[in-house]
C-alpha cells in the first residue's frame, strides 16, 4: 500500500515505464512485417482461425481445424504449397462456452482474433473459424481491418450479407436449408406422423425451426407443444431433456428433429432410450457425427451431409483425405489406414480445399480483395469434396445449400439414403420446396498431390 504520495507517484511512473517496455517489445515483434501487412510474401501466406480447443464445443469440433491444417501441410510438402506459396495456418482457442474455469483467459473471440491480426507480417484472412456468436462478434473488427473472414464454420444465415460485410463468406449448408430438406423428407416418408423438435436456444435452433416450417411442417415455437429448446451449457451440466422426451412419448411423437451440438445429441438419445422412447431421430449435420456423439443408440438416426458419406471408401475425396491425415501423425496420432473418417475431418478438409482452389485461381497476384472477387466469380466451379456446388456469387456468400440425407449406419459411419446420383438442393431462402439435383463427384485435382 502506498503511504506517501511520493511513493505512489513513483509507482505510477514505474508502471508507465514498464508499459513502455512491454509495448516496445510488442512493437518489435510486429514491426518486422509492418510493411505490406496482409500476411502475403512471395513464398508464403498466413491465415488463421479461432476454434474451440477446450470447453464443451471442443470434442469433435477441434478435429475440424486440425484436419484443415493437415491438408495445408500436405499440400505444402507435396506441391510446395499453392503457386509456390506455403500456407501458414494459425489456430487460436476461442474458449467458447467454457462452462467454468477451464479456459483461463478472457473468453472473447475478439481478443483471440486480435491476437491473430497481430501475427508478424499480418494476416491474410481468417479461414474456418467456428461458431455463430463468436464469429458474429468479430465481423466488424475483421471487416474494418480489411481482412476477409472466410468459410465460417456455422450454418447461420448471418454470413450471407455481402452488402454489409463484403469479405465475409460461409461454407456449409445453412440451417434453414437443412430444415427445409428435413421437412421435405419427413413429409414424404412419415406421412401424418406427429413431429417433435428440440433445438439449441440460439440461431441454430431458431433457423432450423424456420427451415422446417418453410419446408411445410407446422412445428410451434420452441417452448410450446412438442417443440423444446435447451441451453448449450445446461446440456452439459444436468438433464433438461427427460421431461421433454417424456412429454413427446405421451403425445405419441413419431419423429423428433434435433438441432443440437454433439454433446446434447448424445444426452438426448440416451435419455430417450432410458425412458423407452424410440422415435425416428432426424439430427442436424452439425450434431450428428457418429464418432463424436459416440453412442450406440444413435444408430438408425437420420441426418444431412454435404460431404460424401463416411462409409463411401471409394470416394476419391475420402481417399485423399485419409492420405492427408495419415501424413500428419503429429495432429492425428491415432489415425491409421483402418480408421474411418469422421464428418468433422471431412469438413475441415472441405473448406481447406476450397481455400486452396481460390488461392490457385488467383495466380501470383494474391490480394485480400482478389480472393473475394475470385470466390464470387469462380467459386461455384471449384472442385471440392462437397456433393453440391458452392453457390457463391456477388449477392450470395452462403456457400453450400443442399446435401444428402444419410442414415447413421453404425457407431462410426454414415450411409446415403438419397436416391443414387442425386442430392437435395434447397435453393434460396424462400418457401420453395427443395429440388433434386445431380450428385457432384469432382475428381481430386492432381496439383493437390
Amino acid at each position, binding site marked *: 500500500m502506498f503511504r506517501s504520495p511520493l511513493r505512489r507517484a513513483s509507482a505510477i511512473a514505474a508502471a508507465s515505464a514498464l508499459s513502455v517496455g512491454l509495448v516496445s517489445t510488442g512493437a518489435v515483434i510486429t514491426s518486422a512485417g509492418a510493411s505490406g501487412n496482409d500476411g502475403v510474401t512471395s513464398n508464403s501466406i498466413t491465415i488463421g482461425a479461432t476454434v474451440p*480447443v*477446450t*470447453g*464443451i464445443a*471442443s*470434442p*469433435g469440433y*477441434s478435429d475440424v481445424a486440425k484436419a484443415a491444417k493437415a491438408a495445408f501441410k500436405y499440400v505444402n510438402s507435396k506441391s510446395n504449397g499453392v503457386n509456390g506459396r506455403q500456407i501458414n495456418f494459425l489456430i487460436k482457442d476461442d474458449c467458447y462456452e*467454457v*462452462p*467454468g*474455469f*477451464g479456459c*483461463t483467459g478472457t473468453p472473447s473471440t475478439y481478443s483471440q482474433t486480435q491476437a491473430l491480426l497481430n501475427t508478424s507480417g499480418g494476416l491474410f484472412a481468417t479461414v474456418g473459424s467456428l461458431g455463430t456468436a463468436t464469429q458474429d462478434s468479430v465481423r466488424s473488427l475483421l471487416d474494418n481491418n480489411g481482412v476477409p473472414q472466410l468459410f465460417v464454420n456455422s450454418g447461420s444465415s448471418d454470413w450471407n450479407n455481402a452488402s454489409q460485410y463484403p469479405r465475409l463468406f460461409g461454407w456449409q449448408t445453412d440451417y434453414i436449408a437443412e430444415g427445409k430438406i428435413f421437412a421435405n423428407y419427413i413429409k414424404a416418408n412419415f406421412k401424418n406422423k406427429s413431429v417433435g423438435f428440440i433445438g439449441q*436456444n440460439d440461431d441454430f435452433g431458431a433457423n432450423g425451426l424456420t427451415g422446417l416450417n418453410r419446408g411445410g411442417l407446422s412445428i410451434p415455437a420452441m*417452448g410450446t407443444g412438442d417443440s423444446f*429448446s*435447451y*441451453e448449450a*451449457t*445446461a446440456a*452439459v*451440466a*444436468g*438433464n*433438461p431433456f*427427460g*421431461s421433454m422426451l*417424456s412429454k413427446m*412419448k*405421451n403425445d405419441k411423437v413419431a419423429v423428433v428433429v434435433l438441432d443440437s451440438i454433439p*454433446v446434447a445429441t*448424445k*444426452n438426448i438419445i*440416451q*435419455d430417450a*432410450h*432410458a*425412458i*423407452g422412447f424410440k422415435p425416428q431421430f432426424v439430427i442436424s449435420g452439425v450434431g450428428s457425427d457418429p464418432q463424436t456423439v459416440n453412442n450406440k443408440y444413435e444408430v438408425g438416426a437420420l441426418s444431412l451431409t454435404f460431404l460424401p458419406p463416411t462409409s463411401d471408401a471409394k470416394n476419391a475425396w475420402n481417399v485423399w483425405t485419409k492420405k492427408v491425415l495419415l501424413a500428419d501423425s503429429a495432429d492425428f496420432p491415432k489415425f491409421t489406414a483402418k480408421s474411418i473418417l469422421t464428418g468433422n475431418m471431412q469438413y475441415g478438409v472441405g473448406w481447406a480445399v476450397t481455400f486452396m482452389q481460390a488461392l490457385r485461381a488467383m495466380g501470383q497476384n494474391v490480394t485480400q480483395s482478389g480472393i473475394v472477387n475470385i470466390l464470387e466469380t469462380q467459386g461455384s466451379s471449384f472442385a471440392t469434396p462437397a456433393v453440391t456446388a458452392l453457390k457463391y456469387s456477388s449477392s450470395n456468400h452462403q456457400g453450400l445449400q443442399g446435401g444428402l440425407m444419410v442414415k447413421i449406419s453404425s457407431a462410426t459411419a454414415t450411409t446415403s439414403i438419397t436416391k443414387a446420383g442425386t442430392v437435395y438442393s434447397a435453393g434460396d431462402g424462400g418457401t420453395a420446396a427443395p429440388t433434386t439435383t445431380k450428385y457432384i463427384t469432382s475428381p481430386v485435382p492432381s496439383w493437390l498431390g
Partner: protein
Amino acid sequence: MIDLLTSRVMGDIFLGVTQGVLYGLIGLSLVIVWQSTNILNFAQGAMAMFATYVGMTLLEHGLNYWACLAISVAAGFVLGGATERVLVRPLYGKPEINSIVVMVGFLGILEAGAIAIWGGTSRMIVSPFSLSYFQHNGKTIFLSPFAILQIAAAVTVMLIVAGLFRFTKLGLQLRAAALAPEVARLLGVRVNRLLTLGWALASAAGAVAAVVISSGFEGLTPTNMDVYFVFGFIAAAVGGLESPLGAVLAGVLIGMLQQFIVDYAPPSWASFSPVLILVVALMIRPQGLFSKQRVRRV
C-alpha cells in the same frame, strides 16, 4: 400408488433428487474441509474430477466398476491429504484471501492439467447398473437402478461422515482439532495429522460424486465439476457450512428446484435461480438454514 409414481410431479422429484444428491456430496466435502480447517476449498470439484480421471486411467483396460470406484476414492483420499500437506499448511493463520487465491490457482492447474493429460472429451465409466428408467404400463417412473445406486451412495457417504464425526474417537478428535486446535494439542491430539486426514476424507467423499457423475448420462469432463462445485457450495452455504446433513438436504432441495424450473419455466432460469435462493437464504439466516447459531469465537 404406482400411478402417482409415474406422474409428472413425482418424475421431477425423482430427477431432482438424483441430481441434488450430487450437489449434496460436493457440499458435504466442502463442509468437512470447512469444519476442519476453516477454508472454503474452491478446488473441491476439480480435485474430485482429477481423482476420478486417475482411477479411470488406471483401469482403462478391463474396467471393473467397483475397483474403479475404490481406486478413484483412494486417489481422492491421497490427493486431498497431499494438498493439505503441501499447499494448505502454509496458509493457516494467513488472511483468507491467501487460501482463496491458492485454491483457485490449484483449481486452474487441475483443470488445465486434466485437459492436457486426458483431453476435453467427456468420458464415461460404464456402471453395472442400467441407466434406463423403470416403466409401468408404458409410462415412465423417473428412477433407474443407477439412480437408486446414486442416491444410496450419497446417503451412505453422508451416514459414514456423520457417524464418524458424531460417534467415533477419531471424529471427536477431528471436531476438537477444528473447534479449538490449540486446546486439542495441549491434550495430546495430533492436530496436524488430523487436518490432513480431514482434507483426505473430504476429497474422497467428493470423488464419490465424480465417479457417479462419470457413470451417468453426461460423463466426466475436466470442467463439468465446476457446476457441481457452484451448486454444491450453494447447498453447503444454505445448509450452514457446519452441518453435513444440512448440506445434503439443501443439495437435494436445489436439485429438485432446478428440475421443477426446467420443467415448468424457461430452462435457462435453472442456472441462476439457486443463486437467488442463496442470497435470500443468507439474508435471512447468515449462518445457514440448518446450522445452530454459534457464538462468534474470538
